[in-house]
């Protein structure tokens, strides 16, 4: 039983991260209909920014509340800027072009970042993974069984991540559906030319969306690095893919969908490993995705665009 509970906790904790990364994915997709393949890599760069900041702060300062805040601000701000630049120079010129072309530049950016960060020239970190500092001092938030060697542990950062994810999701949901800016985002996503006729500054809306998405990626990446204690140039590739799957399961473009998709994916993976065959984890994860899509072609929460003939 305790084992089951532990798996449940693990699954939620892993799913939280998928969900957080998926939120940014879904948001950018929602507005641009662009599978931003570089999203995971932007996240990776954000984590390195946080890493460098923590390094600069030193052991003491990095785990003080202000230190943590600074790390998050630097990483998220840096990524927002990077997201802005990527959108401005790699995606915007292609906005009127077939959607696939922007996908290719996204892949190009993804390659550039993930391979570029493997170099050990100048400030680049090199291919070896690095231990990410414990900026949130781990403490047991909840235990079950023998307090010395507990059967089940819930750590403080797991709780923090989950709360943060839920808050962010709610915030995003409100942003998209409850604010004027959100309405503008949705209008831009359907037709940015007509949106401009409503007085919506489309370029700015898209830039801001990208910046929010990238900042979210950085934040998610930091929580991810705290959770799994390391950072490496290829981390974006794997997490990005999983987050994308999570977003699609939930219905891509849909904010609560990303959250639910992330959690589901985390749980499915956890339980496959725990109770079935760990070697089949990725296959089952994708199988689950396919199953969901066959039953609901627009994802769990998505609706297939109404097409009137």
């Amino acid at each position, binding site marked *: 039983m305790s084992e089951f509970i532990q798996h449940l906790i693990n699954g939620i904790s892993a799913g939280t991260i998928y969900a957080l990364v998926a939120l940014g994915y879904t948001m950018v*997709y929602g507005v641009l*209909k662009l*599978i931003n*393949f570089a999203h995971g890599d932007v996240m990776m760069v954000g984590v390195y920014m946080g890493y460098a900041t923590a390094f600069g702060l030193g052991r003491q300062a990095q785990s003080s509340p202000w230190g943590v805040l600074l790390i998050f601000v630097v990483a998220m701000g840096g990524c927002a800027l990077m997201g802005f630049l990527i959108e401005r120079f*790699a995606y915007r*010129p*292609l906005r009127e*072009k*077939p959607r*696939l*072309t*922007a*996908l*290719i*530049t996204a*892949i*190009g*950016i*993804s*390659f*550039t*970042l993930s*391979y*570029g960060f*493997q*170099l*050990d*020239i100048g400030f680049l970190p090199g291919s070896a993974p690095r231990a990410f500092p414990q900026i949130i001092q781990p403490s047991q938030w909840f235990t079950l069984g023998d307090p010395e060697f507990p059967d089940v542990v819930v750590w403080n950062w797991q709780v923090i991540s989950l709360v943060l994810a839920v808050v962010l999701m709610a915030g995003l949901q409100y942003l998209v559906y409850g604010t004027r800016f959100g309405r503008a985002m949705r209008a831009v996503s359907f037709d940015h030319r007509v949106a401009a006729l409503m007085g919506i500054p489309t370029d700015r809306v898209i830039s801001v969306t990208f910046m929010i998405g990238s900042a979210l990626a950085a934040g998610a990446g930091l929580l991810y690095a705290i959770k799994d204690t390391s950072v490496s140039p290829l981390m974006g*590739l794997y997490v990005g*893919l999983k987050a*994308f*799957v999570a977003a*699609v399961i939930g219905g*891509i473009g849909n904010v609560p969908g990303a959250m639910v998709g992330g959690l589901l994916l985390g749980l499915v993976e956890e339980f496959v490993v725990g109770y079935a065959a760990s*070697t*089949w984890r*990725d*296959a089952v994860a*994708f*199988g689950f*995705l*396919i199953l969901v*899509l*066959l039953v609901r*072609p*627009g*994802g769990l929460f998505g609706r*297939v665009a109404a*097409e009137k*003939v």
Partner: protein
Amino acid sequence: MRTASAVSGSGSPSGVPASLRGILPVLVAVPALLVLDWLLSNSPFANYLLSIMAVNIILAVSLNIVNGMTGQFSIGHAGFMAVGAYLAGVTSLALKDVALSFLPVAVSDQVFLVVALLVGGISAALAGFLVGLPSLRLRGDYLAIVTLGFGEIIRVAVTNTEAFGRALGLSGIPQTSSVAMVGFWVFLVVLVARRIAGSSHGRSLWAIREDEVAAEAMGVNTTGYKVRAFVISSFFAGVAGGLFAHFVPIINPGSFTFVKSMEIVVMVVLGGLGSTTGAIVAAVFLTLLPEALRSAFSAFGSESNLAQQVDQIRMPVYGLLLVVLMLSRPQGLFGTKELWEVIPRWIPRRRKGM
């Protein structure tokens, strides 16, 4: 998109009798390939590079049938390639010690190679059918992610199969592929792609790409055509995988990841969606690019420590080049057109019939 009417265009301007037009390319290509093979027999590196390039061309041209012509966005092509590679590989390993006594060893080897390739191709086609069928309910990016998922599932399945050597992969597959053989399959896939394009089948695929509802209303069996596009495309991906297995000394699951699938998609888009020649040119270009960067960078020499790292730089540079290329030619090299429509004077019109 003038290509469809090109073949069927009125009459036969080339002066080749109608009865010969079907077979003529084969009559030209086969001897040409044999000569090429003979010319290159002493340069293994050129052989290897050409083979890799050819496999990429087959992959790009075949993916183009689904992505470019039919407008269905598939990004799991490496999975079908894997199916072909492994099944062809296993077949060849099983037939390794057998020979057809009435044939010279070299010829008998080639016969078995073709058998293995067909096994690989047909298995991949079957996989394509299985993927295509349920996926057809899905549109656009949802279809894409499902194909990607199927690709990954195939990879995991291979990784977990003892008979496929698990993570180590299969080695010892007879290296019987040759420039002539890969060249022949390149020729075949191009021929098939072009002839589909020149027939009512090609037009039906394009119609689906342009507007599925209208295509259906105009009597196009969209489901059927989409499945067929998938099947044909995966067949050739399987053959490409089979060929791959017969000149790369070892195949393992690491060669068939979604990154490989993405590379193929990049070739197709860079060449121009729907353009067969575009896919070819892009495949050639993107295969040679890393090698060219390598040559360029090794010109720095290898004395300093920095120069030693130079080979690492080519991958980020490759990524940046993709961005630059796409920004400068967003519609792909040739758009949806073919080489001879873009550069009309290069190639006389009659080549269109191919």
